[in-house]
């Protein structure tokens, strides 16, 4: 039975679904952002897991040549982390402005305020 050895991928799936559910079902705007972050973190985990070579060490050149893991997913995920940081910063800036404009950060209260005006 191979699947216990694939526990990395199980963690990816659990994080992915947790993040996705939080992002779509919570009303609080900050919780949605947290959900998006968890979702993006699962993607990081997926790529890094794919890059591991059996018996390989971290992809940094050391004395005494050894087998190295694939460095490309690490580099791709650095880019993905930066994209995630930029998205989070932008989302938080929007939430600050929404709070100043509406006085609340609960989505259902905002919808009620919009329907009244």
């Amino acid at each position: 039975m191979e699947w216990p050895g694939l526990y990395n991928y199980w963690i990816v799936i659990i994080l992915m679904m947790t993040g996705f559910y939080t992002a779509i079902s919570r009303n609080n705007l900050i919780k949605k952002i947290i959900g998006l972050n968890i979702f993006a973190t699962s993607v990081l985990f997926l790529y890094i897991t794919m890059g591991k070579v059996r018996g390989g060490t971290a992809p940094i050149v050391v004395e005494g040549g050894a087998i190295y893991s694939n460095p490309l997913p690490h580099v791709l995920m650095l880019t993905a982390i930066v994209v995630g940081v930029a998205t989070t910063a932008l989302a938080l800036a929007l939430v600050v402005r929404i709070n100043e404009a509406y006085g609340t950060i609960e989505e259902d209260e905002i919808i009620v305020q919009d329907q009244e005006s």
Partner: protein
Amino acid sequence: MSEHLPILQIVVPMVSSLICILLRRRLLSWAFAFTVSAITLVMSATLLARVYAGGTIIYELGGWSPPWGIEYRIDILNAFVLLLVSIISTVVLLYAPSSVADEIPASRHHYFYSAYLLCLTGLLGVTITGDAFNLFVFLEISALSSYILISQGKDRRALMASYQYLVMGTLGATFIVIGIGLLYAVTGTLNMADISARLDEVGSNRTVLVAFAFLTVGMSLKLAMFPLYLWLPNAYCYAPSIVTAFLASTATKVSIYVFLRFVFTIFGRDFAFDTMHLDAILMPLALIGIFVGSLVAIFQTNIKRMLAYSSVAQIGYMMLGISFLSVTGLTGGIVHLFNHGVMKGALFLAVGCVVLRTGSANLDDFRGLGKRMPITMAAFVLAGVSLIGVPLTVGFVSKWYLVLAALEQGYWPVAVLILLASLLAVAYIWRIVEVAYFQEAPEDAPEVKEAPFLMQVGMWTLIVGTYYFGISTSMTVSVARKAAEMLMGASS
């Protein structure tokens, strides 16, 4: 320098976006942005001419040959979309100064143009690249800058619209990156042509199926296909006028290009349609999208929101053309991509003129506008007629090819449905015509003049384009047909 044209197409707007932050003066930043956009247009037109005559252009970045390095690969489909994005961007920037001065505080104009140029860079980069992860990075650049641009609207609901678009857009882009990651796991490369070649050797594998599913859902979110379009009406309605005109004509079209690239070039027509039966999902969803979009548009009281729902319907037309899986169908879909960009751009620019002079885009405030702003309303009616699909306009050309493709495949009901949906378009355009021309303005309506000169020039350029490309269809149809043949022929 001219062999470096592919990379200059990206570097020029990107560097200019940053220089625009440093230019603090309002008109200087506008003039700079407009000049850069015009240079981009010249480059896109040159690239299209070269590709049409000579075939695919390949440019390797960093001197590393693919698959180790990133390459920019321009074929006829790419070049067509590049041209559309550049034309719309330049015309909208020509129109921009008075509209931006009215809707955005003066201290932020240089930031606004900088974000606009960054969005342009992102859209051009998505279109031009031949590397899958590079596509994701540029997609996120264009998405983040469009969230910034949309949140600049005067109404406070623009903030919420931008936030909802952010959440849905990030989910879509993350789905796309999961799909790319699974493809990388199966093939070991990120170069699009190389993935396509290696997928043939791999054959059908559960990872490839899951990657296809993730990519399709992610791209459908970005291009606002039927169930996943909910971010679009609010985002287009509350954004500033020129942002709506720019994004409505380019952002979803670029996402449709990404869809075509992944489904036809990377996965291959046989896998997508024979193994995965994509057409069985695509055609019903496209038809439902056309009808839902058109029907909901009829009942809207805000004109921008009505045009946004109309955009959802038109995207349904494009996906319908793709789902026919024939050269005629793909030609119809691709030519409608261009035509809709020109039509919708013209309509949103006309609404922008009205918003500048009357301050509102509500149907009630359009009463009697036919007499008060005759030139603008004439432009609106001319472009609206094109949405319906009257002969001599670009709308007719697209619908002609779509109906022809439906009849070729023997789908009589679908052809009837396409014509029915045009009647619905008559309904929602006629509402505005009736209110503007056949109702009297209320007594307390403000005195309005026509819109300023540059806005008129920008708007009428696109209206003339609507009729020019409807009468002399040789350029758009031949390019679209060549692209369709290339996509259908690149089977694997």
